[in-house]
């Protein structure tokens, strides 16, 4: 199975099939990430399409010093931010119809489970940027260095943010556990 670097190198030399393989490798992961960032599924799908097209167009500017996934997520982040700002402008013009459906998207995409999905908890507690850092670290298994690169932040910021976010989610889980026990005890 060829590595990302091999496929990128072949794609840079003009192999369309190599790029298609990269697309197949990343499209689902990117969409999963974009679903947590965009207001609607349509926005997430548009952002995915834009991300892949931009990656193809600017493949020559990719610096192999970094992981291909880091570069791709960087583009995806930018596209998600553009989509969010477009929505804000639309909301300002056409009331709050879109804003109403925004919090529900992630919930809709999550398979049914007995407990709340931790990414919903994270979404509730963390800022967008810290949420992205958490996603890259725990859903994508990126290193602190790569996360910092993707977010354009110093490594210290990433380390501290990840630590604080973990503590915050951990505290929330502890609280939930305590209140669950309490309600059982009193129920």
């Amino acid at each position: 199975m060829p590595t990302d670097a091999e496929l990128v190198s072949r794609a840079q030399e003009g192999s369309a099939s190599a790029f298609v393989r990269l697309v197949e490798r990343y499209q689902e992961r990117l969409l999963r990430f974009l679903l947590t960032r965009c207001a609607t599924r349509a926005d997430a799908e548009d952002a995915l399409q834009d991300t892949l097209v931009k990656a193809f167009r600017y493949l020559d500017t990719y610096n192999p010093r970094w992981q291909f996934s880091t570069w791709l997520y960087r583009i995806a982040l930018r596209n998600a931010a553009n989509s969010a700002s477009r929505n804000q402008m639309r909301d300002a013009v056409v009331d709050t119809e879109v804003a109403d459906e925004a919090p529900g998207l992630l919930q809709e995409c999550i398979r049914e489970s007995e407990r709340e999905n931790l990414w919903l908890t994270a979404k509730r507690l963390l800022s967008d940027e810290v949420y992205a850092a958490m996603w890259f670290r725990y859903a994508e298994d990126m290193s602190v260095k790569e996360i910092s690169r993707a977010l354009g932040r110093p490594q210290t910021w990433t380390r501290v943010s990840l630590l604080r976010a973990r503590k915050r989610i951990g505290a929330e889980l502890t609280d939930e556990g305590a209140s669950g026990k309490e309600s059982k005890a009193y129920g």
Partner: protein
Amino acid sequence: MDKLERRLRDDALQIRADVSPDLAVRIQESLRSARPMPQARREFSLPLWLAASVTGAAAALAVIILVNVGDIGKPPEAADSAPYSVPQYVNELRHELPLRATTADLTAPLEEEMKNLRSDLERARERLERDLEFTF
């Protein structure tokens, strides 16, 4: 990997992100119609830097050659047809000219200028690279 990390990882996979066939087709079509950007960075910055260096070096070399050629200012016919003898004082004057020293004086500012140009170009190249990276 601790419990929280495991839960985060598992929960991420609980988010349904199937790429529908329609979306896959849409992406393939948009990729087919997209054209890669020309090799902007390679074709623009590097050759510019090289061209500037080569031009600078060539100009410096030309000045050195011109200054060192002893025939500067001599009319072309003078060498071929010289029925009269050259007065002695002309030769003395020519030999007394500190040609090497003059060459050094003339090329030093040019070399300085070339150094400045190179550093300007390097700065511009770095800025361009940074801008290109910020594009994404």
